[in-house]
């Protein structure tokens, strides 16, 4: 139980230096951002290192920030060190025009479907993934529905006047 967020940050900065940035601890969970091409290297180090031992992949997902130019899509990894019971959140930002990120399937079997799901909803192209096809949506779908440019409800609907509810027509 000796592993602390400070120690992890120190080890990672020693190894990678400028590649990593944005260290924060929201609600005690160490969060960091890696440069786009280094996500797999960072995860490989976190996996292999005898002190860090982040060998359990909890979750992979993505977030779309349309206003961030050239970093519209964030891929978020939640890793877990089960021995020391400490979690870590790794983020990689990628432009929406070329959303290529290296796959983590070589490290974790569970990454397979998680990455397929992330591809399915955000269109992240996981380079090196063995079977990157849609998993929950229909195969014929041509767009990535969780991106922010697809609002849930048709904003052009005319049968429902939001001004009647004091919201000026757009929520």
């Amino acid at each position: 139980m000796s592993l602390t967020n400070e120690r992890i940050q120190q080890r990672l900065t020693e190894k990678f230096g400028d590649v990593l940035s944005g260290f924060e601890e929201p609600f005690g969970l160490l969060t960091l951002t890696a440069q786009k091409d280094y996500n797999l290297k960072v995860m490989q180090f976190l996996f292999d290192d005898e002190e860090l031992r982040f060998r359990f992949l909890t979750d992979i997902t993505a977030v779309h920030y349309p206003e961030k130019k050239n970093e519209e899509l964030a891929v978020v990894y939640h890793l877990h060190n089960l021995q020391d019971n400490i979690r870590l959140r790794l983020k990689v930002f990628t432009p929406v025009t070329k959303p290529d990120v290296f796959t983590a399937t070589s490290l974790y079997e569970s990454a397979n479907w998680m990455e397929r799901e992330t591809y399915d909803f955000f269109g992240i192209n996981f380079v090196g993934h063995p079977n990157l096809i849609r998993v929950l949506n229909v195969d014929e779908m041509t767009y990535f529905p969780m991106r922010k440019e697809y609002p849930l409800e048709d904003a052009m609907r005319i049968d429902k006047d939001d001004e009647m509810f004091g919201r000026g027509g757009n929520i």
Partner: protein
Amino acid sequence: MLDQKQHIKLPEGSIEKDTTTLNLGPTHPATHGVFQNILEIDGERIVSAVPTVGYIHRAFEKIAERRPYYQITPLTDRLNYCSAPINNMGWLLTVEKLLGIEVPKRVDYLRVIIMELARIADHLICSSVMGVDTGALTGFVYVMTYRELIYEIYEEICGSRLTTNIGRIGGFERNFTPTAFAKIERFLAEYPAVLKEFETLLTRNRIFMERTQGVGAISAERALSYGFTGPNLRAAGVDYDVRVANPYSSYQDFDFTVPVGTTGDSYDRFLVRNAEMWESISIIRQAMEKLKSLPADVYHADVPAYYLPDKKDVYTKMEALIYHFKIVMGETDILPGEVYNAVEGANGELGFYLISDGGRSPYRLHFRRPCFIYYQAYPELIKGSMLSDAIVCMSSLNLIAGELDA
């Protein structure tokens, strides 16, 4: 002599193939849910399997981006609908973590009671359905009486049975009634004998053991690599339980053990679930004991900006009316922040990754659904086994279609 043109054209290679393609599902009665598997079988041995998921995908993550926080609780009901209260609590705990709300001890204990009841209801279905799939319907019908009693307890607390929408941000919508406590006491008094009888029916039953031992086995290493959590991981011998690793809702106040298996096969998963039901009973007993020393009228935290006020206050007090209006219209802004919170769901670590930008609804909400993550191991688990073993393996994994597809 038939003319060459009259022959049916078969696809290239379809006659030379040694194996048969079999579509198991999506609406097969033995899969207990909408699961499709395209199996390649050689006689009755499975050579390969390709699972197809997404038949009941309802885009909850997208819907959640347009809903105020208190309206997302009903969406979580529909993930793992066999233990909806755990999902509700997991979501509420995530929001409370983001807002920094400390709930009173009594609320924690009431939540623990309801979560453990839900865990029993979920494990009960899974274990008894394993009996059904191996040809023993009696146990299933017998224990249903007690799942029914658990549903009656839910009904007494929140008014609904399956998709419960139980609890609010900060606590419960109303206090537990004396009838609810009486029903919990009745459950605690009667259920142990029933569970014991259910175990005598199956645990050392030669037919059941032959059908489940060695079926769908996975090593601890592979299970971790596949992201297994919950009873399926513990059956493989890894003692990871979110209730112990990162206690929430005052689980640290309770004394319980985490049962583990050794081989990771269907039989061990069955044993682990049964052992967990005994632990859950013990936790509920402890919680009922702890409740006696706490004031009986506390059932929510004092957070007027997020917790709906009493109806009579709304009609008589100005502040209550304002808060009521703001909450119901979804005009309450939530603090910006990024939080991951996990609870021990009935079939694994149920995580909620929530990003709030300060608006009325989440900027992004992602559910870490244990079913979705461990179902990808299914082809590996059933490879080389018989077709009927694949069915047993599937029910022993406790796959819930609603959680798988979200």
